[in-house]
């Protein structure tokens, strides 16, 4: 009389649905295997090194690590400099973002984009630019000494905290500017008008209405800057010298220079825990920001700069703002320009201006570099390309799993898949580049083929670093697709594969390309993990430039860096042309 209840549960399986199941199973397998093999299993290896001594669990290494003054000061310094960097970035960046949000002028978009370039530059390139610009014989100090007549340099970037801070500000100011511009733009000015009619004072209006609306954006941006500065490697490694070290630098030194794997991995675990906490905090704040951003229509009234209309006071304010923006622009572009000029500046007069670029083809520096600069360039491009392809494949696999959530939505059940995936990539996201590399190294070093396959592991490390960025970019564009489009397509008889090919794929293509180029750019300049894993002829340009810092002329590294700058800017222009860059993790 009644039908057995399970008959309803099971839908009639069509060819389409079977195929879909096969695709999802394959994608899940790829994802799980990849993260298990190259992240989670290596991670357990790290845990094993740091927690287990002769088969017993011990916290000895942790207490050793924490009791070591060197490590403790690295931990404290990591926090201290990250905190300072964040505060200074906020102080400098927020007025700039307000100016950029409020005023309309020709070339504004270009200016915002140009100010973002440092963020995508390879850290080693930034480092080189800083050395050329702020070194004792660098531009800034030379100009200062000429003007003031003093013999003492204005800035000393080596072994001082200033150098590190300036570099971090240079790097991260764009994060603050880019994230807070929409915050200013999204302020609901209707609310302010309402508050005015209610007779609220100016200060109260700011505190109760404007500030809450921008606060979440500021928190998100600050947490990002904090995490980037906290995990800073190349800049601190070189500029901090022995005095200042971040955890990331300590891990590297313990692992590579002292070969103390126990201390290195223990530090890595501590760093991972801190990073995870910050990232979770960040994701929560991000979610809140997005929720608040919804449903706002009226936004900041843009104003064209028009000096004639202004009162004297306003003229002064706008004038100072413009000077401020110009200074910021010079600050951003001086190091980049310095590198390009340096690449044409011979150390001795007998040498041609193009010596640096000519040297790319020579083997003269092989004792430093282990291979010709040209080979390094090819390695860099090859790694970046492979990284891009693998990253896109992994992101697409993730997408195939996520899009299946509509199956659950059909039954009015919330999807667990998306949550699971965000947890799955949360940990790799929170893991520093060096730790990723350490894991791969410890896990695979005992294999006889390890040394010949080092390049594979370099690429894998790059993939682990790029996947969270790429996935976020792709998911962001996927989530903008209206579910009803897919519903309509299915009622029109389109198979799941056809819906993907004809509707979803074209609509996420931009995100996919941006994600791909972004991962290409990340790999292009990646230094920490590459430098840790690198062996013999598998060096990249970043590694090469770093190894040449000590040489008598910076012309060759400047030439190599100029090539990186050129490629990075090309990538950046492409991303800008296609869509919006997402600086967020």
């Amino acid at each position, binding site marked *: 009389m009644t039908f057995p209840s399970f008959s*309803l549960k*099971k*839908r*009639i399986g*069509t060819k*389409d*649905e079977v195929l879909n199941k096969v695709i999802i199973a394959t994608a899940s397998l790829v994802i799980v295997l990849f993260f298990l093999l190259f992240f989670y299993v290596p991670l357990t290896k790290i845990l094993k090194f740091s927690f287990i001594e002769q088969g017993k669990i011990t916290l000895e290494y942790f207490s050793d690590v924490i009791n070591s003054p060197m490590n403790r000061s690295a931990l404290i310094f990591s926090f201290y400099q990250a905190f300072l960097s964040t505060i200074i970035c906020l102080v400098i960046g927020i007025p700039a973002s307000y100016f950029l949000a409020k005023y309309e002028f020709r070339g504004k978009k270009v200016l915002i984009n140009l100010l973002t370039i440092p963020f995508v530059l390879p850290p080693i390139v930034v480092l080189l630019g800083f050395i050329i610009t702020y070194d004792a014989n660098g531009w800034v100090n030379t100009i200062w000494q000429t003007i003031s007549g003093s013999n003492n340099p204005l800035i000393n970037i080596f072994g001082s905290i200033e150098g590190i801070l300036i570099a971090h500000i240079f790097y991260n100011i764009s994060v603050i500017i880019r994230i807070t511009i929409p915050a200013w733009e999204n302020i609901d000015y209707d609310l302010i008008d309402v508050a005015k009619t209610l007779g609220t004072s100016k200060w109260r209006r700011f505190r109760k209405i404007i500030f809450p609306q921008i606060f979440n954006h500021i928190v998100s941006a600050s947490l990002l800057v904090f995490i980037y500065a906290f995990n800073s490697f190349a800049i601190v490694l070189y500029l901090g010298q022995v005095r200042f070290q971040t955890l990331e630098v300590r891990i590297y030194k313990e692992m590579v220079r002292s070969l103390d794997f126990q201390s290195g991995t223990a530090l890595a675990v501590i760093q991972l825990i801190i990073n995870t906490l910050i990232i979770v905090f960040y994701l929560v704040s991000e979610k809140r920001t997005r929720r608040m951003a919804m449903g706002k229509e009226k936004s900041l009234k843009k104003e064209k700069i028009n000096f004639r209309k202004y009162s004297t006071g306003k003229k002064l304010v706008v004038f100072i703002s413009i000077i401020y923006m110009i200074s910021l622009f010079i600050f951003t572009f001086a190091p980049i320009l310095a590198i390009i000029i340096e690449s044409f500046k011979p150390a001795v007069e007998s040498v041609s201006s193009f010596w640096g670029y000519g040297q790319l083809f020579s083997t003269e520096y092989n004792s430093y570099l282990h291979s010709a600069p040209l080979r390094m360039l090819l390695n860099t491009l090859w790694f970046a390309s492979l990284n891009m392809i693998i990253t896109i494949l992994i992101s697409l696999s993730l997408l195939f799993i996520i899009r299946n959530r509509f199956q659950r939505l*059909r*039954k*009015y059940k919330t999807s667990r898949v998306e949550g699971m995936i965000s947890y799955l990539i949360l940990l790799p996201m929170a893991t520093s580049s060096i730790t990723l590399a350490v894991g791969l190294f410890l896990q695979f070093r005992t294999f006889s083929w390890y040394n010949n396959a080092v390049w594979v592991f370099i690429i894998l490390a790059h993939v682990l670093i790029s996947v969270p960025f790429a996935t976020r970019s792709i998911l962001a564009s996927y989530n903008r697709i*209206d579910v*009803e*489009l897919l*519903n*309509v*397509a*299915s*009622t*029109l*008889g*389109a*198979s799941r594969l*056809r819906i993907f090919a*004809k*509707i979803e794929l*074209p*609509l996420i293509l931009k995100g996919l390309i941006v994600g791909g180029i972004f991962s290409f750019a990340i790999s292009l300049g990646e230094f920490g993990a590459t430098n840790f894993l690198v062996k013999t002829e598998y060096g990249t340009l970043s590694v090469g430039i770093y190894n040449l810092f000590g040489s008598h002329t910076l012309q060759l590294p400047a030439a190599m860096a100029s090539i990186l700058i050129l490629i990075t800017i090309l990538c950046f222009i492409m991303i800008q042309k296609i869509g919006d860059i997402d600086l967020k993790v």
Partner: protein
Amino acid sequence: MVNLEINDLSMRYEKKYILEDLRLNVEHGELLVLLGESGCGKTTLIKIIAGIIEPEKGKIIMEDEDITLFSPQRRKMGYVPQAQVLFPHMTVKSNISFGLKSHKKSKEEIKEKIRWVAELIQIEELLERYSSEISGGQKQRVALARAMAIEPHMLLLDEPLSSIDATGRESLALTIRRIQKETETTTIYVTHNQEEARLISDRVAVIYDGKVQQIGKVTEIDNSPKNYLIAKIMGSPNVWPIFYIKETDENTILNTTVGEIKLPKQTNKKITGISISPSCFKPSLEKKSRTDLEKSQFIEFKGEVKSMVQRDERTIRAVIELEGEKFDYAKIDVDKEDFEDILSSDQKIFLYVDTSEVNIL
């Protein structure tokens, strides 16, 4: 032309029933309007019929075939969602041909179908444009064309007029009706607006509490709504709910939002509310005494005139704010000649209704 039978359909969302043991029959070639207030589950129902949502329980039978477990691809339903969603990266033409290509039609056939449907829905001049280049009303026409191109078994329309400006509504509604008649497509049309139902429906199904509460022609439901809520959803004027009922030997006393109403003894049915036709109110500027009211029983209302609109050459419809704690309004139709010069805004007025004219709901 198909018929559709829905049996004992249930669906929950976060443990709350949206649809509960719902039954519905849609007859061959008719246009059935599902009428209900926002959140009553009518969109869920139409999505279940389209196969987009899977019901927890129940059966959907189309032309004697059980399609409950069919995927949306297999059902061949022409679904037009509430938001005007066209595939944004395709031209109008590609939007329309999408379904035809999915059904693997030949090139000639696709061309022929596009021409046919474009002519039918009068969008020939839009074919090469993109979704961003056409108006809201045009988008909805294209969405309709896209659904009709595959010659669906049924047409499922979810509030098709909701996001279209007032001037375009009637014309689109009549277009839908014309197409539905011409192609003899069995159609389900979801809306919360009873005027749309009056304009184009063959039959109306009123939904609330997860069930179809009453189904029939508009006039049938208007004449004998099953209860107070249905009358209200149908947009009848002067509908008031009942709080409680007192019974005496001769009378039934109904306590309503507009006061106590004493009626001759009622026995025939469960009382949920009352309605009074606007033409049954007898307005008067002065309070009438018992003797003025002849022998029959009258109910008295007190209130103030709030607005007056001319209905036709002879009648004026006035809105009266009734005296009481809550703001209740009565709509009354009065003779233009008698009252045009007498009534004015905010004027106090008495209304008298013969108890025999009170409709029990």
